[in-house]
């Protein structure tokens, strides 16, 4: 009983750190532009497929294709912002809502068209197997993905707090008009945040591809959970998304273990609803 409690806690943390990284990308875009990127789950899927194809076609291990995935997803985010989102942002609110939804459907079906709905896995990644640490079985690829997620999340945090560009993004997030008055090129900040947000989820996809199956609709559940995490943590708050991601991962596994696995997502969404009811701005939102 005690053994399984520790095991489940570890499992919850492992999936939670990864959730955090996925959600941080989403919260950046949301915070800066007030736009919900419904295509976030599909960006995750693209990250996974990129990693898969680099492995299959060129023999590059997912661990080493991470920078390429990040760069390509950054580019994709930038292009989608420039070509679609920035235009629609001048239009009515409904159009802003629908545009990324359209993008998500387009990407998912293009993926079905290009790669069929079949399931793929990276068969022999560099990191494979399980460590037996006393009473806990620790999956090596999951541990690596979680450690990587924590590092990348921390790097994103430092970037926003310590660099001039990061501070410009934060300023735009807080008040777009004041930022504009201070001479910040908010249009560039928008494009940059969309790119960085996409790159972060691309990295998460590359990590996930080390142990998870890959297919065109894989982003669905992850996308949904990341919306929940962003709202729970507070829109636009990186720290909030990090804490909420870990919290949801742990609640999901412990809830599934102690109550009933059939209701583990119900427990997660109930937690979200209760938090938003008590604190509408989210845990660390302002």
């Amino acid at each position, binding site marked *: 009983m005690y053994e399984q409690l520790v095991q489940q806690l570890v499992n919850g943390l492992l999936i939670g750190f990864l959730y955090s990284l996925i959600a941080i990308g989403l919260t950046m875009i949301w915070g800066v532009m007030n736009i919900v990127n419904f295509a976030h789950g599909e960006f995750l899927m693209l990250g996974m497929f990129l990693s898969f194809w680099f492995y299959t076609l060129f023999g590059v291990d997912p661990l080493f294709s991470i920078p390429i995935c990040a760069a390509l997803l950054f580019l994709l985010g930038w292009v989608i912002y420039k070509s679609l989102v920035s235009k629609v942002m001048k239009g009515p609110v409904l159009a802003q809502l629908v545009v990324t939804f359209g993008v998500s459907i387009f990407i998912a079906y293009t993926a079905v068209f290009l790669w069929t*709905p079949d399931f793929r896995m990276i068969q022999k990644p560099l990191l494979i197997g399980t460590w037996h640490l006393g009473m806990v079985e620790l999956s090596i690829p999951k541990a690596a993905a979680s450690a990587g997620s924590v590092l990348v999340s921390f790097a994103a945090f430092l970037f926003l707090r310590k660099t001039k560009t990061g501070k410009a993004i934060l300023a735009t997030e807080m008040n777009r008009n004041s930022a504009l008055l201070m001479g910040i090129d908010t249009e560039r900040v928008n494009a940059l945040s969309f790119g960085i947000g996409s790159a972060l989820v691309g990295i998460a996809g590359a990590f996930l591809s080390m142990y998870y199956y890959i297919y065109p609709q894989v982003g669905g559940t992850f996308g949904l959970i990341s919306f929940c995490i962003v709202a729970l943590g507070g829109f636009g708050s990186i720290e909030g998304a990090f804490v909420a991601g870990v919290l949801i991962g742990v609640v999901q596994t412990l809830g599934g273990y102690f109550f*009933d696995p059939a209701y583990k997502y119900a427990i997660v969404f109930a937690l979200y609803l209760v938090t938003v009811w008590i604190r509408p701005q989210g845990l660390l939102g302002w």
Partner: protein
Amino acid sequence: MHGKRSRILSYALTLLLSLALASAGVAADQVIKIGAVYPLTGDIASTGLDCLHGAELAVDIINGQYPDLSLPLAKTAGLPNLNGAKIKLIAADTKGEPKNGQAETERLVTQEKVVAMIGAYQSAVTKTASQATERLKIPYVCSDSSSPTLTERGFKYFFRVSPHDAIFARDQLQFLKDLEKAKKQEIHTIAALYENTEFGSNVGKQILKLAPEYGFRVVADISYSHGATDVTSEVGRLIRANPDVLMHASYITDAILFTKTFKEMGFIPKGIMTFAGYIEPGYLPAVKADGNDIIVRSTFALDLAKSKPLVAKVNALFKKKYGIDMSENAARSFTAPFVLADAMNRAKTTEAEAVVTALLATNIPDDQVIYPWLGIKFDPQSHQNIYARGILVQIQNQNYITVWPFDAAAAKVIWPFPPWNTRK
């Protein structure tokens, strides 16, 4: 201004006229439209496509001439009693959701004017789709959904060819009994693990009901929602329950995820017995050797060709058309079009009441099916095929090999399940 308006009017008229001509053309060509609903997008799209391929091959065989196949209507082109009319399959996507199953079925019947339906693989979807056909009074022949409740509703227009999960669950428990005798194995406890929609929860119900009848104790009863991102808590509960045998009803996504998690967390029961997900064509390419030694319920295996040459011939046609071997799903969906075409041919019409009467008189002998059954004959009350039965296949060296019934086995069953660290 006037000119522009009349031009638009003339375009519209031309369009209408061509549509009218097109539909008249269909009538003259003697085409019988049959609707097929399958999950062609969404998380089990690969399975849905596979099922559709099975049905499409069946339609090819009915419409074409295949003198060396003993299948119904294979030797003649089309349906001879209906002036050689050809079957046309009209597929629609359910996205794996019951509400779409119903909406698409209604659309196919009312707009595409299909005269019968097949599909929809997922029991929950078949349930709503067949409610629509029952209301619209259209025959529905299902050969790919296995929830027992589907044929317990007293529907007039719904027929099922394949075995249901009460039969499959009994098969698996009987196998364990046979194994105890044959291999002197002691089996006491069972864990039931199942996804929580129509299909899985009914398998769960059957296991909980039947296991005590066979003298086994159920030590874990775990339901979960398929499409989960992580199943470590489910496997944690299994490890805590420590059953002799795991019985798992899943779709493909959860089959892959559970296999990986069993290995990662070191869950080793004496046997892993499964339903559905583990036999889909996407499963083994994803998990490779980690799928070895898992046992799956089935109606079909390629090694049946040893006693049934028809299996090899049909598989050869399938491979020629789609480039892969026929899977159990494709094999199951393959039979519904034959049953419908056979009934329509005997009824000499596609009119629903006459087709239902003909379906009730269906008597397809064992040499005309690709399964190890006595044939196809429907129970007059439930409309379930009384001859349908299951076999058990085990994944050995990444192939599905028949291991039970022992007299039909192509290889000996590997038991108990080898520990993960001793496997390749």
